[in-house]
């Protein structure tokens, strides 16, 4: 067999082997590899390269070497999935850099980090002032996870006391075709979809994307971008009507001379107001 043919055959064979081995070791991005996995990758690659281009080399030796470098890490990974202690050795532990708003200089030194590098990592998290940081950990992959102080954290709906739950919208129309499975998941029928499209005044062929949200409202995007489709108006309209009725009831309460009727109107206007308060979060788009 000529040398060049041997190289081609070995290259193809090893390419498949290395690919299979790396797939087997797990699905991870390059940046998420631990030091251990990183070294395994390099060594396996070098062995493969070495056997590929030197035809004089004994193929078996190379394969044995690769097998060892594959089997041992594989066992270690299996063990580390079972045991926390082994995981600490192979993957390392995060190092706390900032605790209770104070920088832990000893830990910085241990990980060979300078103050400048710490500041740089914090800046990458948009934290320019160390005083804003409550807690920060250097993760095993070298990234810094930061917990800002409570008053520096972005506001969330629960901070505002708004209860809002969402469900994922279902895509029911794509490229002018009805997708039956998502439509069923959303609990709608084809007839319903056709009625909704009629209401919007568009034909199915003209729809590029159509989605149903958790409240059963349909939004569509058309091929023809010059056409504007009305956004769902039902909820805001309902809210506006409720507000109008509440105002009306107050007005009646003021106008009537009958004390009993006055009381009734006042009570009901208050009731309606409480309904509005409760339903606003749900009815706002």
């Amino acid at each position: 067999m000529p040398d060049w043919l041997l190289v081609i055959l070995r290259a193809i064979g090893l390419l498949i082997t290395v690919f299979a081995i790396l797939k087997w070791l797990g699905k991870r991005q390059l940046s998420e590899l631990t030091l251990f996995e990183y070294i395994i990758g390099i060594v396996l690659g070098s062995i493969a390269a070495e056997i590929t281009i030197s035809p004089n080399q004994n193929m078996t030796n190379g394969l044995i070497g690769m097998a060892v470098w594959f089997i041992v890490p594989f066992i270690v990974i299996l063990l580390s999935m079972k045991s926390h202690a082994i995981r600490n050795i192979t993957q390392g532990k995060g190092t706390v850099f900032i605790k209770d708003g104070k920088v832990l200089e000893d830990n910085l030194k241990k990980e060979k980090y300078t103050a400048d590098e710490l500041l740089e990592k914090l800046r990458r998290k948009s934290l320019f002032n160390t005083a804003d940081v409550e807690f920060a950990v250097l993760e095993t992959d070298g990234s810094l996870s930061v917990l800002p102080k409570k008053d520096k954290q972005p506001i969330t709906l629960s901070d505002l006391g708004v209860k809002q739950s969402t469900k994922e919208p279902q895509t029911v129309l794509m490229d002018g075709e009805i997708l039956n499975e998502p439509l069923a998941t959303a609990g709608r029928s084809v007839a319903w979809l056709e009625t909704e499209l009629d209401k919007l005044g568009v034909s199915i062929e003209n729809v590029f994307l159509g989605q149903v949200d958790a409240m059963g409202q349909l939004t569509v995007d058309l091929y023809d971008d010059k056409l504007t489709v009305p956004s769902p108006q039902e909820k805001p309209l309902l809210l506006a009507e409720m507000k109008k009725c509440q105002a009306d009831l107050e007005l009646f309460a003021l106008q009537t001379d009958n004390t009993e009727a006055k009381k009734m109107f006042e009570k009901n206007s208050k009731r309606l107001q409480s309904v509005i308060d409760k339903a606003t979060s749900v009815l706002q788009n």
Partner: protein
Amino acid sequence: MTIGTQVKQCLSSIKSIEAGLSSLAIRTQDKETKAILEESAGTIGEIKHDMKARIKDLEREEDQYKGF
């Protein structure tokens, strides 16, 4: 517009709100939202009841307000 027709108008708005809320509640998949909507529709239903009673009183007091 007399008070009678105004109150009747308000009643029909209330009815339409109740129907709107109920229909939203039926179509909503999320349980929490559904509960809020159903509860709201219930309260609106009570208001509707009170309004109907008031309209009956109005019609008895002022005969010309009778009918739609």
